[in-house]
């Protein structure tokens, strides 16, 4: 990979950003494995971020504790919403989660007393006083937990449940699995991850705002990463996040004007040339060589 190996803080910061997206991408993929495409990543990210920022500010919670609160809040929201929306399939579920993100944003913007309104809320200081190494370790830890959960989902009963939801609901039903229960469970867990990531983002940059925190990029980029890397696996989203995250940063430095154009072209070309994603392509090569 043509990743520029600048030593030090900058690399760590870039790696932290990539890990942030990696967690979002992987959590999104975990839900996709049940057959549900969510466009609501930014929504749970934002709920986590706001809950963490507001509890840290108003209840003087420890930043790490507030991050946990962020995760819990996102999980609670997902439980409530999942019970009503997970009945929807395909594009209808996707659009509903997208709309919910916008609904969260509008609510946050219109409650200035609680949330700081359109201007957002500033925290007095960043987590670990802005120490990039500690922040990196935090995100790495969150990423490792996410990877562990993803692998656990791939190896346990949950795997059977969620893949059978995706492939054939009738089979899953007749085998006595309460598939809806599993879908809600996965939705809650993945949303909690997204909430935790959002919360640490808020703590890292010490501010939340409706425009910045509910940014649709927090939904779109992770999806792009999963597709590039390959879906329905732990490895695919990881590869996608590493590749797309470092390519984006590298391009920016090499090509100050027009780097986003190349970025878009790269996405288009990868879809045309490697429709199964980088991981899928690698696997194919691997199998062929054997």
């Amino acid at each position: 990979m043509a990743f520029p190996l600048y030593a030090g803080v900058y690399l760590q910061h870039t790696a932290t950003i990539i890990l942030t997206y990696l967690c979002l991408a992987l959590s999104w993929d975990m839900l996709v494995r049940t057959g549900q495409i969510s466009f609501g990543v930014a929504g749970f990210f934002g709920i986590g971020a706001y809950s963490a920022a507001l509890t840290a500010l108003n209840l003087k919670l420890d930043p790490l504790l507030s991050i946990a609160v962020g995760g819990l809040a996102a999980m609670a929201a997902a439980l409530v919403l999942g019970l009503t929306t997970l009945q929807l399939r395909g594009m209808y579920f996707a659009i509903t989660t997208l709309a919910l993100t916008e609904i969260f944003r509008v609510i946050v913007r219109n409650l200035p007393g609680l949330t700081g309104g359109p201007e957002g809320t500033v925290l007095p200081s960043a987590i670990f006083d802005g120490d990039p190494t500690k922040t990196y370790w935090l995100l790495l830890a969150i990423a490792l937990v996410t990877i562990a959960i993803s692998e656990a989902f791939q190896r346990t009963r949950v795997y059977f449940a969620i893949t059978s939801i995706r492939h054939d609901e009738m089979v899953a039903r007749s085998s006595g699995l309460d598939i809806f229960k599993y879908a809600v469970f996965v939705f809650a867990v993945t949303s909690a991850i997204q909430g935790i990531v959002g919360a640490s983002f808020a703590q890292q940059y010490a501010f939340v705002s409706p425009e910045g925190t509910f940014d649709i990029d927090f939904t779109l980029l992770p999806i792009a990463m999963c597709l590039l890397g390959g879906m329905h696996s732990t490895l695919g989203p990881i590869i996608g996040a590493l590749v797309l995250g470092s390519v984006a940063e590298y391009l920016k430095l090499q090509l100050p004007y027009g780097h986003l154009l190349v970025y878009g072209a790269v996405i288009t070309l990868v879809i045309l040339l490697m429709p199964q994603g980088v991981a899928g392509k690698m696997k194919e090569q691997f199998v062929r060589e054997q």
Partner: protein
Amino acid sequence: MTGKRMRAVCVGCILLAALISACAPAAAPGTPPATPTVGTTPAAAAQPAAAVKKPIKLGAVIPLGDITGAQSAKAMKLAVKEINAKGGVLGRPLELIVVDDEMKPDKGAAALDKLATVDKVDVFIGGMASGVLLGQAPTLKKYAKVTVWTGAASSKCEEAIGADADWFFHIHPWDYNQGASYEEGWTAITKRYPQIKVENQFWAYEEGAFGAGTFKASQDLYNQWAKIQGQSFKSAAVGGGDYRAVLRQAKEAKPDVFIWVGYEPDAMGFVQQAKEIGFAPPIFLGSPPGWPVAFGKSPLSEAVWLYGMWAPAIKEVSDVSKGFLDAYVKEYGEEPATYFSPLGYANVYIVAEAIRRAGTIDKPALITALEKTEYKSPTGDVVTFTPSKIIKHQGIKKQKILQYQHGQQQVIWPFEVATAKPAYPFPSWEGR
């Protein structure tokens, strides 16, 4: 079976790579300590005396995809070129390193890390969106490097930077500076032209941070001298563009002044739809960060007032402005479209002159020198740094009140740089 093993191997490799990258700074020599050491800037302190010809590095973080940032970067490059042509500063050339922030707080903060640790710049400059500076504040505080910032109007940023940051110099006026400045301006204008009335104001503000923040700041400020009411709208920049509901409310309020605070894409819509519903208040004023291409060419722009920092017409009353404008047009073959270009130009000159006065790039000396700045800026202002509500070093506090006349933006106030007299009241829409 092989698939699973391969997956395990790959996950392992990635984890290993991640661990190495985290440990790398500990191993790499010459990296600055991660926690800020108060009082010293490692990069500045480490400068060996022998390296006389070594360039002085300015690191700029700007959104290059946006015209404001693009033109700001162009003007900075122009200023650096001019200064270097005259032998640089302290016998050393200036080097400008620009990193795109993509209007994203995380990217903006990472850009600062790159400039500080990879390029090892001496001073941070640049800046545009408030939302980005908010995210950059922890990083800026971590390095506590001398920072001269052109952008960000939201006073939330001031909160985030904090009172202790003696290294932070902010050129752009804060939202409440702007509000206070307009109060001053209108008081002066109404004194000179007693027929002009501004007591009763109706504000239409875009519902995001920019509009709502500006309105709130002004509302807190204006209770003394003007009665203001307001209503939010959705900017065309984020998918809105129907202003008729808010315009109709404004019409019912019969204000002396109608002000809209939004973005460039709202400009034409506001005049078109005001004409459509027959709303022509005595003063029709817009306050976006910039204007659309050739807005002045439309007959609807005639006598529209605007708030701003600069207009090309200032060249008629300011030599610095004329010098900048001519040089910019010569260099790039186009007139700058936003005030961020003179601001970027001023940004480089303010830093360069301060370094020259300080005779060094040592932080304490540079800060003292910057505090004594008295720079005649192409925006028509004399930039000095004085305390604002929270921070110690606020540059420009004054805005300008301008008006479109015959297709050009003319300065009405401050009177020292005025290029035209006000056209009042606003002519009716009929026949335009």
